[in-house]
């Protein structure tokens, strides 16, 4: 039960008083001005984790002193405390007997005919691909009894080498989403797929030439679907295909622009508002981040240098050595100025008054680029004006990068390039003109996601004679359509798709459609000569030419490996760019609205995936909502606190949104993430606000508008302040009071974050261990005897230098370890259950921070504080050094969490695991317990994988080989940040990394002897620019 004082109010007051008395007078609530002054006054490095912390708000003070956040250990259910005690009393009485109750009879249902090759209990792996609109992600799916239970990158694929991303990791929950639509319906009545197919075919056939038949589809990614469409068009030339993907429409990608980067050869990388390090919403993410990271593994052996010019703060900018924050509309002008400076062909840069500091950045950047011609890469932002893409290409050409680090493909990146927004406008015009007989919506949800000026509402859809919706959910659009047909998930479908490098991957089904889903291939095939032809046959027909040699043999090989060899894009495409028209930046008085697909739920298609909803977004650490993200200044100008509500008006629409401030956000701008405000789904329905309501077709990614503060609080859930630590305060009292609390922890004597510049590293490779408090205590300094570790000794190494904070590891951990989703209210009170979190430590000025991303999970201490306090032996040390949880012993005292200095233990305050929903049961990893209420849990180093490897090795009478045990986070990581292995094996990768001079242990001074160790960062600064993130004078705002 609760450790907190019964009367919470009193309890808080007491704590507040205590904290006040111990604090200096000037450490009361500060304004932002004061915070800036405070930051300015300091020299050296300083880190902070949230603006609350810098302002030293009472909430922050209180949070620091508590184990869980204020209500974390309170009983928040509607059940009264007394009622609870009554129930508990009864349970106590029964507890003695409950131990004696016998298990119920469990049935076994064996197969009638067992499938060939199936060994129950041994998973099988099949290759497939996740057809994202930004390029397919080649996958290897773990299948247990033919149920897909874990998605990972295909390790043999030349594009991603086994890495994945949070979208792919989360897609497994999307497959088993219980809210997916389950029936074909016609005006609300159940029908069969064949009914729809017949109606559709008859109608289209009756038009003879396809007049009045419109298909609105999400971006076509499948070569087979494109081929089928061409066949349909040949038969019915007047039928129209409109592609619309809200996160793609209006970008260079939709128009087929296909430029590829090889960052492994790039010494200098420049991002022009391109967020290529944070997720698969940027094309080629896996390869780009992998190559970027490769050049940061060995600092002495040639590091790259990343410059970022960006608007909305992203992990790419935070990771950059030098980051320049600009308003989104200034980026094209900046790109043009850069082009002019490096002597790229004559795009005339619009006249613009750059500040001295921006000019300095520009000059230094241009100089550095020219010095590394042929070994640099300039990457344009996907959501920037098209001119940025053209300018980036021109700069790359001027620098001689083409053919080296940058290649232009001769084929478009998507099979049917189009101007998606113009097409959508045309469709709306035709609808209004009454030209549309049949409107077929293929995996498209325009009622939700169309721009506000092209609103697909009831009356617009009514202008079509028949609207048929083929989609995964009975969603906003499905409800307004006559026909609704469930569409199959990619893990249920035959299809094909091309990865970023062009390699054709075959999408093969892992399971029969759970709920009668059909694929887009089947829909188009109904219009062709052989309407019953399956998607499988259609895909085979398309790929006939690509597979060399005997087709059947080749086909089997392709299904096994997952992709077709020699199908990568051919390079040497034409460098076609006219001098682009560079738009002038908006006036600084004008409020800019930046629209971005959400880092977690993308354009809203994954809104019902709980893992992705609960995942804290990079930089802001916001979960379960989107928000109006401002700079600290603009927020103050609006006179709004975090969590206040503002009304955003643009393009004739208004929405209400919660306010949060993000460090590094441009002033007088607001970023809103798309993908929220869904009306359907038990998970995503009602979360956040619908930003499409203020998005116009003319300015899909950077618009203008106005905001005003309105009354009320939203109730957002931000995780960043959950893991503060009490011990920081004691240190603050003795040190430079200008340093923030976490700053002391992170960079002070303790050095949670340790980094240096490349130059300093070269002269002093041992920097991570120098200074007071940074020595690792000797092995003798413990009251407890040392463990022997005679066999294996598991350890993990995390490379801080290459971690980009993309969150793929967290979602992989969800999937592997059956981690429950707790919901927004529980996250608000600090009860989120992720075993792994990524701590972002910000450094520098509020307007121009740098961040350090530190994946933090159970450190598996050799001297574990948790083990010593468990009264029931539920957390124990294993002979191989794991700090293991025995769930069935745990009685929930939470002493262990109290005693953990890393704050990595998670407690099931309520019954979070879903024991009811049938479809979710299919998804669970059978090798990991599903935890019930009252049980503590935490990272286990994927003990199930260790055990499986140990059994294999023991059967063969050998040691476990290095690399045989791969943790889920390690497997997912696109930057190879995490290395796991046996420290006793001196030749193992992890043991070698442990010998690295940069290796350090977090909180080593506690003598916990953590087994997870970190490699200190080394940053490759440009000597002409300041190492410290520079302070920016606030813009008007």
């Amino acid at each position, binding site marked *: 039960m609760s450790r907190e004082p019964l009367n919470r109010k009193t309890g808080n007051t007491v704590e507040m008083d205590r904290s006040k008395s111990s604090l200096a007078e000037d450490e009361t609530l500060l304004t932002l001005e004061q915070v800036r002054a405070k930051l300015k006054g300091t020299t050296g490095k300083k880190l902070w984790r949230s603006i609350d912390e810098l302002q030293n708000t009472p909430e922050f003070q209180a949070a620091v002193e508590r184990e869980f956040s204020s209500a974390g250990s309170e009983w928040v259910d509607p059940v009264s405390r007394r009622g609870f005690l009554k129930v508990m009393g009864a349970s106590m009485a029964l507890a003695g007997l409950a131990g*004696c109750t016998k298990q119920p009879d469990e049935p076994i249902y*064996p197969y*009638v005919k*067992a499938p060939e090759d199936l060994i*129950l209990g*041994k998973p099988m792996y099949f290759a497939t691909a996740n057809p994202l609109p930004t390029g397919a992600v080649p996958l290897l799916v773990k299948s247990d009894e033919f149920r897909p239970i874990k998605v990972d990158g295909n390790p043999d694929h030349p594009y991603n080498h086994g890495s994945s991303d949070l979208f792919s990791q989360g897609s497994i929950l999307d497959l088993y989403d219980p809210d997916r639509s389950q029936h074909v319906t016609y005006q609300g009545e159940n029908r069969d797929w064949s009914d729809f197919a017949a109606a559709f075919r008859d109608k289209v056939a009756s038009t003879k030439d396809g007049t009045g038949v419109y298909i609105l589809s999400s971006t076509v990614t499948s070569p087979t679907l494109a081929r089928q469409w061409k066949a349909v068009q040949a038969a019915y030339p007047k039928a129209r295909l409109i592609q619309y993907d809200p996160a793609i429409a209006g970008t260079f990608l939709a128009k087929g622009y296909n430029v590829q980067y090889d960052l492994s050869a790039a010494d200098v990388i420049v991002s022009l508002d391109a967020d290529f390090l944070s997720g698969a919403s940027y094309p080629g993410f896996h390869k780009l981040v992998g190559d970027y990271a490769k050049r940061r593994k060995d600092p002495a052996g040639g590091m790259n240098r990343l410059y970022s010019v960006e608007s909305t703060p992203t992990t790419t900018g935070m990771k950059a050595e030098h980051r320049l924050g600009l308003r989104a509309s200034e980026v094209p002008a900046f790109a043009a100025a850069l082009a002019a400076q490096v002597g790229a062909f004559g795009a005339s840069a619009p006249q613009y008054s750059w500040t001295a500091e921006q000019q300095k950045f520009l000059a230094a950047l241009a100089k550095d680029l020219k010095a590394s011609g042929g070994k640099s890469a300039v990457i344009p932002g996907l959501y920037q004006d098209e001119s940025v893409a053209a300018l980036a290409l021109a700069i790359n050409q001027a620098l001689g990068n083409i053919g080296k680090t940058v290649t232009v493909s001769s084929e478009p990146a998507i099979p049917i390039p189009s101007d998606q927004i113009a097409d959508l406008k045309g469709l709306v015009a035709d609808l209004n003109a009454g030209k549309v007989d049949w409107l077929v919506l293929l995996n498209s949800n325009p009622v939700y996601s169309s721009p506000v000026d092209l609103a697909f509402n009831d009356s617009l859809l009514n202008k079509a004679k028949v609207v048929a919706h083929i989609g995964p959910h009975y969603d906003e659009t499905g409800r307004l359509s006559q026909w609704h047909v469930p569409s199959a998930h990619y893990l249920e479908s035959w299809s094909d798709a091309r990865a970023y490098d062009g390699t054709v991957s075959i999408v093969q089904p892992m399971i029969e459609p759970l709920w009668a889903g059909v694929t887009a291939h089947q829909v188009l095939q109904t219009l062709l000569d052989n309407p019953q032809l399956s998607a499988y046959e259609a895909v085979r027909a398309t790929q006939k030419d690509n597979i060399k040699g005997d087709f059947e043999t080749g086909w089997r090989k392709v299904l096994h490996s997952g992709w077709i060899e020699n199908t990568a894009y051919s390079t040497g495409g034409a460098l076609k760019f006219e001098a682009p028209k560079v738009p002038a930046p908006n006036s600084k008085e004008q409020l800019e609205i930046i629209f971005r697909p959400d880092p977690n739920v993308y354009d809203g298609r994954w809104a019902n995936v709980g893992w992705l909803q609960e995942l804290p977004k990079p930089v802001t650490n916001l979960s379960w909502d989107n928000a109006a993200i401002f700079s600290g200044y603009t927020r103050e100008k609006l006179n709004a606190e975090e969590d206040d509500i503002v009304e955003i008006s643009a393009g004739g629409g208004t929405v209400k949104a919660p306010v949060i401030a993000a460090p590094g956000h441009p002033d007088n701008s607001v970023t809103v993430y798309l993908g929220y405000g869904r009306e359907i789904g038990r998970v995503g329905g009602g979360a956040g606000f619908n930003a499409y309501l203020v998005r116009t077709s003319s300015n899909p990614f950077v618009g203008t508008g106005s905001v005003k503060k309105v009354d009320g609080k939203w109730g957002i859930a931000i995780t960043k302040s959950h893991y503060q630590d009490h011990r920081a305060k004691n240190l603050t009292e003795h040190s430079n009071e200008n340093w923030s609390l976490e700053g002391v922890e992170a960079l002070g004597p303790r050095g949670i974050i340790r980094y240096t510049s490349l130059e300093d590293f070269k002269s002093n490779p041992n920097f991570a261990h120098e200074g007071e408090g940074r020595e690792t205590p000797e092995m003798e300094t413990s009251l407890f005897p040392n463990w022997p570790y005679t066999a294996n000794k598991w350890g993990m190494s995390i490379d801080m230098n290459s971690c980009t904070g993309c969150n793929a590891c967290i979602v992989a951990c969800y999937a592997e370890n059956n981690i429950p989703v707790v919901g927004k209210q529980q996250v608000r009170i600090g009860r989120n259950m992720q075993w792994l979190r990524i701590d972002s430590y910000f450094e520098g000025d509020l307007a121009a921070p740098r961040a350090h991303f530190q994946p933090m999970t159970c450190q598996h201490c050799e001297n574990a504080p948790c083990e010593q306090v468990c009264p029931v032996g539920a957390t124990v040390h294993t002979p191989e050094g794991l700090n293991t949880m025995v*769930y069935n012993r745990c009685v929930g005292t939470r002493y262990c969490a109290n005693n953990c200095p890393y704050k990595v233990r998670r407690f099931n305050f309520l019954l979070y695991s879903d024991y009811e929903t049938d479809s979710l049961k299919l998804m669970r990893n059978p090798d990991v317990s599903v935890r019930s209420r009252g049980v503590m849990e935490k990272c286990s180093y994927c003990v199930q994988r260790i055990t499986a490897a140990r059994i294999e090795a023991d059967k063969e*009478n050998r040691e476990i080989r290095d690399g045989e045990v791969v943790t889920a986070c390690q497997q997912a990581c696109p930057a190879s940040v995490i290395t796991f292995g046996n420290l006793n094996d001196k030749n193992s990768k992890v043991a070698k990394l442990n010998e690295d001079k940069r290796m350090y242990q977090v909180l080593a001074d506690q003598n916990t002897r953590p087994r997870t160790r970190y490699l200190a960062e080394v940053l490759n600064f440009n000597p002409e620019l300041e190492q410290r993130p520079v302070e920016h004078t606030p813009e008007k705002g």
Partner: protein
Amino acid sequence: MAQIFDRSSNALARASLVLTGLIVIALGVTLDQLQRSPWVTRQGQRPEQPVPFSHKHHVTGLGLQCQYCHTSVEKSSYAGIPPTKTCMNCHAQIWTNAALLQPVRDSWATGQSLPWIKVHDLPDYVYFSHEIHVNKGLGCASCHGRVDQMPLMYAQNTLQMEWCLDCHRNPAKNLRPTSQLYNMAWEAPAPERPVWCAVNAEKTGVPTAQSTSCTTKDPTGAGPQMAAMQKPTLEQEKTATDGSTGTIPASLHYEKFTSQDQLGHFLLKQYHIRNPYELSSCEVCHR
């Protein structure tokens, strides 16, 4: 006022105190016994099955080898319950009209599984693997008992944690040569039924204890000494992987064992069995 209680009540009060103590102890003992009783553990109970399948008939009577049905016992954590097809392999030919087999034929006809009741049912938080036990020289009968003598299947052992730990703390007492895993009648070596084992040096490091050859016949040729076992069935002889009952390679150096303790410790080393400290660590079975 007269005394309400007589002097004798003092004794009564004292007795009741003692009695209360005894009752508490008795309750504790009862609960403890209850927890270990067959009512809770289901040791020895025969649940009602859709078909009264007799292991005795199929194993002893017909000589079926365990793995004919339990196919994945060496390969996976599950031993495997045979699909209906396995039954029909024979019962499509024999006993085709037996009333007892109606559920099997129904299952075959309708495609619905036979709903067996689990006899050896571990709690869900225990992760047990057949493959590693079988590969490391633990015979079926060590845990499941003389299945070949069970007309109806029941659990020979409690499957409680103390029972598991009993062996994990001293695995030597149950190890046997891998050639004898499926021999239901295997008995520990004794002076009157010794076992000879030899290590084939050429085969060290090969998978699953193949490097060790054991036999119950005296390999020196000093006269056959059959281990006291019921005569090995044809099946068992065929599946003996290391030629224990077949021809004996004379070049090997055989060691004679006359007790389970000796043999167990020899095999412990040969089969690379982990030490009790590692074997009784929590994460071995719980995760």
